[in-house]
């Protein structure tokens, strides 16, 4: 009996030894990785279906017409990036395409949810965009896995397996953000608009500069402060660059060239840094893909206006989830920092433009010509 066992175990070891030469270890490794990716893909699938259901429920609750058709349209919507080998006027082309996308979505939601107010519609729109993002993550991971299996590309599968924890983390943040957006409370990214509102004062009336961006005027220590932010309390980032450009041109026309521009925004912290850290610098603090940021830089360069930036640091997840207390507490320091810059770098009688960049969800204002 012992001889047989010994013979079988020796044969097995020989088979394993020979198999190693033919890459059996790699195949086994790929099998384990693939199983792991598939298990995580199930989680991603569950997240996207769950997000889709939550968004649908919200739209149905708010009497949307053909919500599944609308959600399908948003999920499968795409933007073809402009030609970049010819960079002339690329910003204008990029801006045109993204404005078209925003307008298309807004009009679709307006016609599908005619009875809902602006805040509810913006919530539904953002929820649909988050669902689209989760759906894309799932489809893209599945695509990489199937391509890796089909082409027996173990490097692709290995890379995918290594980044899966990060992908899951991003998907998890989006999924949580969906619930927070449907509630309507301010998110971390609202740091800029909140600083703008606190600086302007709660009783100051605001006027519409563009369709979804507002401006208000106030005074501080003999300086005239013009504050710009996205219109709230709906989920909206507005067009701060375009609105600031317009406001500054108006000020220059009336003979009051601004002496200082300050952008305030939430910024991603590095791992290990504290949440809510306030820092200042030079340049336009805005996280867009280009069209809005370049407008700040162009108008500042055109009239030689010093362009300063104040940022409130936070993690990526903290920026799109309900604002944390640490961030809320840091906003007072950010307001003080803006005031210090104004006092230090301008004189009495000067004009300063402060732009609160970010999503204005849960941050309202008294709008001229409306009740609230």
């Amino acid at each position, binding site marked *: 009996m*012992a001889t047989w*066992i*010994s013979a079988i*175990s*020796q044969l097995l*070891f*020989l088979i394993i030894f020979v198999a190693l030469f033919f890459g059996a270890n790699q195949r086994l490794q790929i099998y384990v990785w693939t199983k*792991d990716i598939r*298990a995580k893909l199930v*989680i991603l699938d569950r*997240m996207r279906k*769950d997000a889709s259901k939550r968004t649908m429920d919200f739209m149905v609750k708010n009497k949307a017409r053909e919500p599944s058709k609308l959600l399908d349209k948003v999920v499968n919507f795409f933007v073809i990036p402009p030609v970049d080998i010819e960079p002339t006027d690329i910003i204008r082309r990029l801006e045109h395409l993204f404005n078209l996308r925003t307008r298309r979505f807004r009009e679709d939601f307006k016609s599908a949810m005619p009875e809902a107010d602006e805040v509810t519609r913006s919530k539904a729109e953002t929820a649909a965009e988050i669902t689209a993002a989760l759906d894309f993550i799932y489809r893209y991971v599945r695509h990489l896995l199937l391509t890796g299996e089909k082409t027996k590309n173990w490097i692709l599968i290995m890379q995918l397996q290594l980044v899966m924890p990060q992908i*899951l983390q991003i998907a*998890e943040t989006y*999924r*949580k953000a969906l619930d*927070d957006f449907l*509630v*309507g*409370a*301010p998110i971390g990214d*609202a740091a800029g608009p*909140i600083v703008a*509102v*606190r600086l302007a004062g*709660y009783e100051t009336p605001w006027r519409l500069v563009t369709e979804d961006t507002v401006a208000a005027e106030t005074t501080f220590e003999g300086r005239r402060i013009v504050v710009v932010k996205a219109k*709230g*309390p709906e989920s909206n980032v507005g067009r701060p660059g375009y609105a600031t450009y317009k406001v500054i041109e108006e000020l220059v026309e009336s003979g009051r060239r601004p002496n200082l521009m300050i952008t305030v925004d939430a910024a991603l912290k590095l791992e290990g840094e504290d949440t809510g850290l306030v820092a200042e610098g030079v340049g336009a603090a805005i996280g867009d893909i280009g069209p809005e940021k370049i407008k700040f830089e162009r108008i500042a360069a055109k009239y030689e206006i010093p362009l300063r930036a104040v940022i409130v640091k936070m993690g990526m997840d903290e920026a799109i*989830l*309900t*604002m*944390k*207390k640490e*961030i*809320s507490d840091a*906003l007072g320091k950010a307001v003080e920092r803006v005031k210090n810059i104004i006092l230090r770098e301008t004189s009495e009688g000067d004009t300063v433009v402060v732009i609160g960049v970010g999503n204005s969800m*849960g*941050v*309202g*204002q*008294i709008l001229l010509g409306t009740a*609230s």
Partner: protein
Amino acid sequence: MASTGMPQWMQSIFIFILLAVTIYLMIKQTKEVKELQERIQRKVKRITVIECVDGSKKERPYREGDYIGLKIEGGECGENVGYITAIYGVEPQPSQGKGKSDQGKATP
């Protein structure tokens, strides 16, 4: 052919360890998935901060429709007027120990 030289009792222990590690990894993965589900379904406690014109500061649970800059007449500020100046979320404490949770405990 060279013998592995591994006695039977050692082979048994080796197989047992392999089995234990496999079971451990399976349980760990299941636990990770469960924890992820729990994290997604977290309930954030949202607080609305109201500053009244008399300088007092009040806090209350967030209500749907609250937003920063909203004028509050009466209510928390009594006969005075106030404004919502902050809204923030407080994450529930993560589960402590084996399956124990502090959810449901009285908070000061």
